[in-house]
């Protein structure tokens, strides 16, 4: 790119905007005192030391990771094929799905939680599964839009036709032809989903609570101890997420290895 166009400029601005609060958090997690000066009065690693001394942190992180990743995988498996077949074969149903997408935002967490407890307590299903179910629905918007946006880029219909004529079942055609082509889109929305689940607090707190302390529960508990430690948690969890998502991207890319469509 020879000249700085609007896209590059807005990219730079967006990145800066996204970066600043992260930087602030990092700084705060390393600050000794920072309450009336522009920059921290001093730097220290004690907050991190204090944090890493607490085994609850890693346990909580592990629980969050487990819950988020399993739920994300389940959501991808349930939602992506459904969105695909609706977009390609029954576009009329799309409006309905879009309505559901909007409604997922209309039910506030507390109300959702109470409704779910009322319905499913006593059913014998562990609440953690109910929570996961609610998460599936919560991921619908991201996976729906991500999948749909990738499908728009593909001549999905004619590729399916070609594959079927060659003897592939719809399912095979979907897995062998469509999925690899929309993989980058699915991956991106799955990552997004994963991150969003990682940050969820209200549902897990009311539905399951302290018996399954996730990172967010831990974070909220720590907020009443020290803002520095809470920041250290956020920073650590960012770093871990960076490593994990980086690995996921790398791994998934390899297993679906193909040269990218330009």
């Amino acid at each position, binding site marked *: 790119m020879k000249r700085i166009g609007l896209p590059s400029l807005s990219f730079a601005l967006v990145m800066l905007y996204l970066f600043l609060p992260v930087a602030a958090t990092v700084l*705060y997690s390393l600050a000794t*005192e*920072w*309450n*009336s000066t522009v920059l921290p009065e001093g730097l220290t690693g004690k907050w991190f030391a204090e944090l890493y001394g607490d085994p609850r942190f890693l346990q909580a992180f592990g629980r969050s990771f487990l819950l988020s990743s399993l739920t994300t995988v389940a959501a991808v498996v349930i939602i992506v094929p459904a969105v695909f077949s609706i977009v390609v074969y029954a576009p009329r149903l799309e409006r309905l799905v879009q309505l559901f997408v909007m409604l997922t935002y209309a039910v506030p967490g*507390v109300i959702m*939680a*109470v409704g779910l*407890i*009322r319905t499913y*307590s*006593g059913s014998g299903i562990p*609440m953690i599964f109910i929570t996961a179910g609610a998460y599936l629905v919560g991921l619908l918007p991201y996976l729906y839009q991500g999948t749909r946006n990738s499908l728009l880029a593909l001549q999905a219909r004619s590729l399916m036709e070609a594959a079927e004529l060659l003897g592939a079942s719809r399912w095979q055609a979907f897995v062998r032809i469509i999925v690899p082509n929309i993989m980058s889109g699915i991956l991106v929305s799955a990552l997004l989903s994963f991150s969003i689940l990682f940050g969820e607090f209200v549902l897990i*707190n*009311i539905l*399951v*609570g*302290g*018996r399954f302390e996730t990172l967010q*529960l831990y974070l*909220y*508990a720590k*907020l*009443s*101890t*020290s*803002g*520095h430690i*809470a920041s250290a948690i956020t920073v650590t969890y960012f770093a871990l997420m960076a490593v994990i998502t980086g690995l996921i991207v790398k791994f998934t890319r390899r297993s679906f290895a193909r040269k990218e469509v330009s």
Partner: protein
Amino acid sequence: ATETKSDATLDTSQLTLEQIVEKAKQEGEVNSVGMPDTWANWGETWGNLQKEYGLKHTDTDMSSAEELAKFEAEKEDATADIGDVGIAFGPLAKQKGLTLPYKTSYWNDIPDWAKDDEGHWVLGYTGTLAFLTDKTKVQNPPKSWADLKSGSYKIAIGDVMKANQAQFAVLAAAYAHGGDEKNIQPGVDFFADLAKNKRLSTSDPSLANLEKGEIEVAIVWDFNALGYRDKIDKNRFDVIIPEEASVSSGYATLINKYAKHPHAAMLAREYILSDAGQSNLARGYARPIRANAKLDESAKAKLLPEEMYKNARPVGDLNAWEETAKKLPQLWQEQVLIHVR
């Protein structure tokens, strides 16, 4: 959970303390809501219960309304045995039939305003609204409502729409200016005045915000104020109970009617009201409800001097306050927040 289903009509008055202890030990665990380790030093209490009676414990922190909603929604499938709610929620929980009544051995030591006749709820500790001042921001910490009025700093009271603590701050101001729970207007006027002068801060007086220096003066429960002060920096903050008037209120324990571990929950309430339990609370800066509790020295040292509390009083007419509290959010919005923006 394979324990025997708790009988909704379990008659707790027939049980002796020994029986309760024994059954609680069998139950082996107790699950609470809204009673996290860091709040009012509950952590130590749970630790003691574990040590002395082998009760395992988990807590899920949530607001009072959420606690009741959870009790109500879960019914027999209860996951919480005991909860700690703002005083107003005690009668409400009783009215909704969510509670198991239990009067502890210390029942008579507890002032009447702080307990339900039938034992559905009972306060474990009280809080009184205090002024918390960041001395790095404000040179002369206010000692009275009059000081507040004449100062030049911003004052944070938190969320009047939602938080118990903030609503009581308005009530305290009303007391100080000739109003009461039936006539909240003087309190509202006081803050409206501050707002007009751009002196009402909208930040939440939370630990992190205080630590960051967002807040100059906050009106918070004394136990919160002391806790924040000690956690951040003992020398940075000043805590006082305003001279003219303040409100005391407290938090009540509720035992879930459908508790899976009802005896453990009863034992927990018993312990909380015991001298040891009350000392634990005091170490968490909460003022024990039992005036006659024998506190150990380390606990006493954590509290503000008794004489500061001479003008603090509990809410006289809870029903009137309930009515007022319902109207308060809108009054606040219309008469105070309107000057904030």
